[in-house]
């Protein structure tokens, strides 16, 4: 057994986290910043954090993930990291010729209390920021929140730092897409564009973390939201924040700063989640729902009903980001399944309320928790007591999957051992079809594997 020390009646814990269902803020900030065109994320702290974050993002995307660090030493920890950051800024602009630097802090620089605003002001005074280049930043102490908080803070900072208030709103829509994959960002754009309106996604990692092989490497790939687009978010007719945890703060910041009306939705994953997104778009644009999208919806429902018997009454265990879990849970219920267990290390009481709502139509009892010790170890002990039919979450779940012989659908972050997540969307109706297919195939493969010979079916 891989996790041989996990038992159904695990001792209570109030201080120790075991096999976390979250990680720290800066990696989220780094991921968000990579979605800005020409932007180099910069980790203000010791170099280990940056190395860890780059490594994990690289393993997930199998793509270059460029980011710099202030490389603190003991001296900087005592005297503050100003001179390190100033040096870094000067080096990044002259060596890598970045258009933008997105600074995030780490536990260390937060504990020391470095004031990034003041350091950036000093950089400006010292002439370290070339004409037409930018620095923006987010505070991302990991002793609060999780990677989702870091992502949310960096997105918010994009709005706070760049969005320009306008007298007259434009026609375009701004979307904060949430912590989703590059393929999802493409799909979100396609859905909005189907309404015939212009859209800015901020951030947008498509074209950054899913680039092709051409024989030339670029420090800064062609994708990403440009600074001009970020500025123009201030004149959007509406901003839609997809995923309250990851995108809520950015949307609301834009609303309060530039008076752009903000609508916060759950991620458009699955049937109803996508329905709401599309209805909102129709209301916002004043346009009817495009036939294409209606047709896509009907195909998803068709699939759900054709194969409904295999989904019916089945249960899942989920872990990861709250936005993903809530949206997936609702979709599971639409598939006549239910989220038997769900844990997220990302703290926030809102999660419990949102889950309650998402599980309104659940066909079985749902147990979910959030916070520090809502970890994979705890979930595993629940599983030991009573198994679900499928596991849905990041790669770390494969250890439970193997020990307990439960199929695993890889979803969310991180996926370190399979590909596909970066290329094929799971948002929208098309994404719903992909998710449903992945879950379904688990059940069917299982049936094929386990059926007695006389009950082995050709047609299913």
């Amino acid at each position, binding site marked *: 057994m891989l996790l041989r020390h996990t038992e159904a009646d695990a001792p209570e814990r109030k201080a120790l*986290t075991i096999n976390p269902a979250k990680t720290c803020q800066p990696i989220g900030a780094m991921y968000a910043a990579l979605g800005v065109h020409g932007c180099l994320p910069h980790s203000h702290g010791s*170099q280990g954090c940056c190395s860890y974050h780059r*490594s994990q993002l690289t393993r997930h995307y199998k793509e270059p*993930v460029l980011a*710099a660090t202030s490389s603190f030493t003991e001296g900087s920890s005592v005297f503050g990291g100003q001179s390190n950051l100033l040096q870094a800024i000067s*080096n990044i602009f002259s060596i890598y010729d970045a258009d933008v630097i997105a600074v995030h802090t780490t536990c260390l620089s937060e*504990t020391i209390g470095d004031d990034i605003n003041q350091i950036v002001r000093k950089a400006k005074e010292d002439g370290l920021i070339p004409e037409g280049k930018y620095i923006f930043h987010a505070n991302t102490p990991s002793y609060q929140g999780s990677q989702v908080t870091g992502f949310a803070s960096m997105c918010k900072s994009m709005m706070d730092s760049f969005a320009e208030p306008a007298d007259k709103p434009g026609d375009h829509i701004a979307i904060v897409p949430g912590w989703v994959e590059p393929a999802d960002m493409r799909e979100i754009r396609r859905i909005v564009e189907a309404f015939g309106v212009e859209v800015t996604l901020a951030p947008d990692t498509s074209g950054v973390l899913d680039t092709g092989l051409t024989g030339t490497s670029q420090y800064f790939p062609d994708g990403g939201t440009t600074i001009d687009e970020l500025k123009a978010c201030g004149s959007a007719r509406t901003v839609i924040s997809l995923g309250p945890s990851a995108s809520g703060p950015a949307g609301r910041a834009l609303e309060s700063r530039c008076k752009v009306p903000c609508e916060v939705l759950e991620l458009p994953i699955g049937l109803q989640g996508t329905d709401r997104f599309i209805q909102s778009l129709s209301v916002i644009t004043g346009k009817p729902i495009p036939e294409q999208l209606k047709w896509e919806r009907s195909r998803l429902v068709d699939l759900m009903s054709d194969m409904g018997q295999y989904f019916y009454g089945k249960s899942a265990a989920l872990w990861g980001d709250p936005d993903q879990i809530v949206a997936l849970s609702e979709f599971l219920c639409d598939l006549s399944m239910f989220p038997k267990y769900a844990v997220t*290390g990302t703290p926030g009481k809102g999660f419990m309320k949102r889950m309650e709502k998402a599980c309104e139509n659940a066909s079985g009892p749902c147990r979910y928790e959030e916070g520090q010790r809502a970890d994979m170890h705890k979930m595993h002990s629940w599983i030991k007591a009573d198994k679900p039919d499928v596991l849905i979450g990041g790669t*770390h779940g494969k250890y439970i999957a193997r020990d307990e012989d439960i199929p695993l659908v890889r979803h969310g972050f991180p996926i370190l051992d399979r590909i596909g997540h970066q290329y094929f969307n799971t948002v929208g109706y098309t994404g719903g079809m992909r998710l449903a297919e992945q879950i379904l195939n688990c059940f069917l493969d299982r049936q094929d594997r386990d059926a007695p010979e006389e009950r082995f079916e050709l047609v299913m």
Partner: protein
Amino acid sequence: MALTPDPAAVKEELLKQFPAKVARKRAKHIVETEGEAGQEIAANVRTIPGVISQRGCTYAGCKGVILGPTRDVLSITHGPIGCGYYSWLTRRNQTRTESDTDPNYMTYSLSTDMQEENIVFGGEAKLKDAIREAYATFKPPAIAIHSTCPVGLIGDDVHAVAREMKEELGINVFGFSCEGYRGVSQSAGHHIANNKIFTEVVSHEAPTQHFPVPEGKFKINLLGEYNIGGDAFVLEELFERCGISLVSTFCGNSTYESLAQARHVDLNLVMCHRSINYVATMLETSYGIPWAKVNFIGANQTAKSLRKVAAFFDDAELTAKVEQVIAEEMVKVDAAKSSIVPRTAGKSVMLFVGGSRAHHYQHLFKEIDMKILAAGYEFAHRDDYEGRDVIPNIKIDADNRNIEEIEVHKAEALYNDRSSPEAEERLKAIDGEGFAEYNGMMPEMEAGVLAIDDVSHYETEKLIELYKPDMVCCGIKEKYSIQKNGVASRQLHSYDYGGPYAGFAGAINFWKDIDMMVNARWWKLVKAPWDMPEDASAAEARMVTLS
């Protein structure tokens, strides 16, 4: 044969884009080799902020590298959640328990997940509770506490907590002050881990009778082998076939017990000099066990290393056995080589990795006739480049000073000097390296190539542009950037999830992988047909076959 472009010109080109101050510093880290000892290179100094280096932190070196592979020491990361999370199963240390019920904690990541109130009011109380809960859950033989950056800053005393918990729980509990900001790279973490493993495990258990004296006639330890991709398994088997008793590996596939038994051997073999030489020296000082530098990466190197062991013990039966095993293995090695060399000969490679691999792997490449264009370490010190003779001349700076230097004394009752001048002469006859000697990477490199320390992302890209190598070996962060250029890259930390690469069997695996990487069809498909220069008749010919 001289390289084109000329290394001196390349060096100049590498530095051109840097601000003057950066260029001055980096220049000292880039050396054109002369193929002999005595050249100096700057190493183990601070990375310049903003240059984008490969390096990680002290915590990674301690928790990830040294303690990571020991399966039954329960590691708890004291700090916010990230550090513990990222070091969760991300190094490929394999381990194999004897039974299904033996403890193995390597699949678990434990953290105190410090919150703001712990930062403000201190985290010791939470740490103590976490240790109690960890004990209740796992009942481990030993617990290790690893400090991350904020811990040192807020002044939590992990060592005091460890002492208290040791008393309370009746098991060994020890702490590491391995905050990421100490030192300039992972290397500081190795040193900190070495110190504590020695004092808190090896010498702590030495006077106790808790563990049996291991059996065997020719007893050795293997230091600095971490069982990435199963390397240690290959070597365990190899030693067994030779009749050599491997008592303890630091730390691949190890247990608390095996580490505690380390003092019972007659010879220590040092693989990764950088990460483990401190333990080697301490075992020598305390118990009189000499150490010899070995390298089990590369077939000839493996043979040589086995011969060193045989030479040390100077036993006819052992020598015969070792020669027999080498002969048997070399048949397979030669067969593999002769099928692969025609496809790899003349291909070129650069290696920027780690603290010993950039040296060790050069042997593997040379054995399949590949050319080394440049090589450098990520976190090594000058002695790993220039040889241990340079150690007295290395300047101690502020960054080194904050790593605890411990004084180790002769353990009088247990000390037994197993070295002899004769044994040393026998070792020297094999490769010139006697006890506690390592000549470093640079003197072994051909003249006229580049040794580059702590290479930056910019430099790596520039080198690819200038040299157009067939392959660049580094780590995960660099791999995909390199490959975007259409150049193969193999990770030498994780072996791209392949391996083992150690020993004879590992060498054969490695060559097959390199053959695959440099000759793969996918590189030839990068250019679309419409981007290929071709004459009109060829395009027409294709039209014809289609119709």
